[in-house]
C-alpha cells in the first residue's frame, strides 16, 4: 500500500466519522498531562532483562507488563542489586563519541522506584566487556562494596565503597576471573588452572586475606563453565560433561565437594550435556537446581538447551524434566510464592514462562525492548 492509498482511505473514513459524531463528544476531549509515575508495590515476579544491548527493561513476568527501562551506556549488563536500600547499581562504560573517544567507567546509582540517577562513582576505565555474564559485577553480602571485574586482558577487581560512594582499590587477580560473592565480604574467582581463588575484604574494603584451592578440575579434559549459580552461601558450577561441583566456605576455608553427575551412563551415551548462556538457576526455598540441557558432541557447551532438568540439592537426584517449547539460551527463576521459570529463546526474541513448581507452560513474553538480551536479575533480592 502506498501513501496515496492510505491518504485516500483516511479521507473517506474521516469524512464518514466526522459527519456521524455529535459535536458534544469533541468538546469533552481532555488532553493528558505528562506525569512522573513511581514503581510501586514491587512483586517478586518483576525481572530486569538486559544483555549486550544498551537498554535494560523491567517486566512484570506474571502479567506480561512492561514497567520501565533505562540505558546502561555501551556496556554489557553489569547489574548489582542491594538487598536492603532503595537503590541499585550498574557498572557502565561511556565514551565521548559513543564507540570511540575518551572512555569513562562508572558505577551508576539509581533510585529503585523512579530510576532517577542519584549518584555516579568513577572507577578505572577497564571493566570487563565481552559475552554477557552474570558474574562481571556483584556486591559483597553486606551490600557495602561493589566488586567490578576488569579485563584488559589483565585481570583484576575494582572495589567501590557504595556507602561512602568512592572507589577504593584495584586488586590484581591475574589468572583468575569474575566475581562470585559469598559470606560476609568474601568473593571467589575461577582460575585457569582449575582452582578457585577466594579474597576477603575488611570492614573498610581493604584486602584482608587471599587464598587459593588446589586444582579441582582439568581445563583440558572436562572444563568447568564460568556460569555459576548461588544457593545460600554456596556456589554451584557444572563441567562441560555435567559434573556438578559445589564451592563452599567451611570454617573460613574454601572447599570443593566431590562432584556428582547430572547425567546417568545412558544419558551420557545419548550425549546429554548442560549448555547455553545461563545454564544454571537455583530455586532458593525449594532447594532445587535447574539445568539447561541439550544433546550434542564435544565443545557444545554454548548450544541452546531443549530441556530443563530439575535436581534436588539435598539428594542430588533429578525430580523433574521440563521439555522447553523453544531452544533456550538462558534460564532464570523468580523466587516468590508463585515462582516462574523463564526460558529465553536462542534468538532472544521470546521468553517462555513456565510454572517453576509444576513445569507447566504458562505464557510467552514477546515484547521486552532489548535487542540482545541474555541476562535476568530479580528486581527484589
Amino acid at each position: 500500500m502506498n501513501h496515496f492509498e492510505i491518504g485516500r482511505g483516511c479521507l473517506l473514513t474521516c469524512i464518514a466519522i466526522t459527519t456521524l459524531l455529535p459535536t458534544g463528544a469533541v468538546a469533552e476531549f481532555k488532553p493528558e498531562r505528562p506525569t512522573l509515575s513511581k514503581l510501586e508495590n514491587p512483586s517478586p515476579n518483576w525481572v530486569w532483562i538486559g544483555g549486550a544491548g544498551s537498554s535494560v527493561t523491567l517486566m512484570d513476568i506474571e502479567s506480561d507488563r512492561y514497567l520501565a527501562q533505562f540505558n546502561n551506556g555501551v556496556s554489557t549488563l553489569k547489574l548489582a542489586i542491594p538487598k536492603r536500600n532503595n537503590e541499585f547499581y550498574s557498572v557502565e562504560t561511556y565514551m565521548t563519541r559513543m564507540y570511540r573517544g575518551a572512555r569513562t567507567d562508572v558505577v551508576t546509582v539509581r533510585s529503585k522506584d523512579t530510576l532517577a540517577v542519584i549518584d555516579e562513582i568513577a572507577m578505572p576505565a577497564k571493566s570487563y566487556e565481552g559475552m554477557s555474564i552474570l558474574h562481571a559485577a556483584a556486591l559483597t553480602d553486606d551490600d557495602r562494596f561493589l566488586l567490578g571485574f576488569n579485563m584488559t586482558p589483565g585481570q583484576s577487581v575494582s572495589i567501590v565503597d557504595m556507602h561512602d560512594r568512592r572507589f577504593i582499590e584495584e586488586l590484581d587477580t591475574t589468572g583468575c576471573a569474575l566475581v562470585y560473592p559469598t559470606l560476609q565480604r568474601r568473593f571467589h574467582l575461577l582460575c585457569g588452572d582449575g582452582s578457585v581463588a577466594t579474597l576477603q575484604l575488611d570492614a573498610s574494603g581493604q584486602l584482608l586475606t587471599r587464598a587459593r584451592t588446589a586444582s579441582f578440575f582439568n581445563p583440558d579434559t572436562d572444563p568447568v563453565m564460568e556460569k555459576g549459580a548461588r544457593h545460600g552461601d554456596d556456589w554451584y558450577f557444572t563441567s562441560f560433561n555435567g559434573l556438578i561441583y559445589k564451592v563452599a566456605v567451611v570454617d573460613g576455608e574454601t572447599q570443593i565437594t566431590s562432584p556428582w553427575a547430572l547425567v546417568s551412563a545412558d544419558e551420557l551415551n545419548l550425549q546429554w550435556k548442560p549448555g547455553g548462556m545461563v545454564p544454571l538457576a537455583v530455586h532458593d526455598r525449594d532447594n532445587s537446581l535447574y539445568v539447561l540441557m541439550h544433546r550434542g558432541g564435544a565443545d557444545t557447551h554454548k548450544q541452546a538447551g531443549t530441556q530443563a532438568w530439575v535436581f534436588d540439592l539435598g539428594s542430588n537426584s533429578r525430580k523433574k524434566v521440563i521439555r522447553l517449547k523453544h531452544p533456550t539460551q538462558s534460564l532464570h527463576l523468580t523466587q516468590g510464592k508463585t515462582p516462574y521459570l523463564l526460558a529465553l529463546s536462542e534468538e532472544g526474541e521470546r521468553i517462555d514462562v513456565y510454572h517453576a513448581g509444576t513445569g507447566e507452560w504458562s505464557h510467552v513474553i514477546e515484547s521486552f525492548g532489548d535487542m540482545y538480551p541474555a541476562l535476568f536479575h530479580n528486581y527484589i533480592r
Partner: protein
Amino acid sequence: MFAHLKNSIPVLFSVLSAVYIAPVWPNTSAFDYRMNCEGCHAVAGAGVEPHVPALKNNLAPFLRTPAGREYLIRVPGVRQISISNAKVADLLNYVVFTLSDIEETQGVRPFSEAEVATYRQRAFLDVPAARARAMDAYESL
C-alpha cells in the same frame, strides 16, 4: 539413468569419511606462541601498550636472576597454558631467543624442561608482588 550410481553413494561416503583426517597441529613453538600468547601480546611479541607489555626486547630483567626466571614460568599466562613442561620451555626459549634481538639475550641460559617443572607446580598468590621481587633481584645484580 543414474540408477546404477545409487548403490555407490554409501560407498562414496565411507571412502570420504575414511579420507577425512583430523587436523594435525604444527608441533612448533611458533604455533604455540600463536595459540597461547599472540591474542594479547600481539604478533612477534610487540605488545599493546599500555595494557599488554611487549615481550620482544622487554624481558631482560627476568632472564638473569632465579626470581626473574621463576616469574616467567609461574606468571599465569605461562603457567596455566595447556602444553607440557617441555613445550613451555621451548616456547619461552622461542620468545626469548627468536623474538628478541640477539644483544638482549647474550649469555642467557636457555630454559629447560626441568626448570619449568620445578617452578610450574604452584600458582602465585600475589602476582604483582612476585613481579616486584623479580625486579628487585634484577636491580641488585
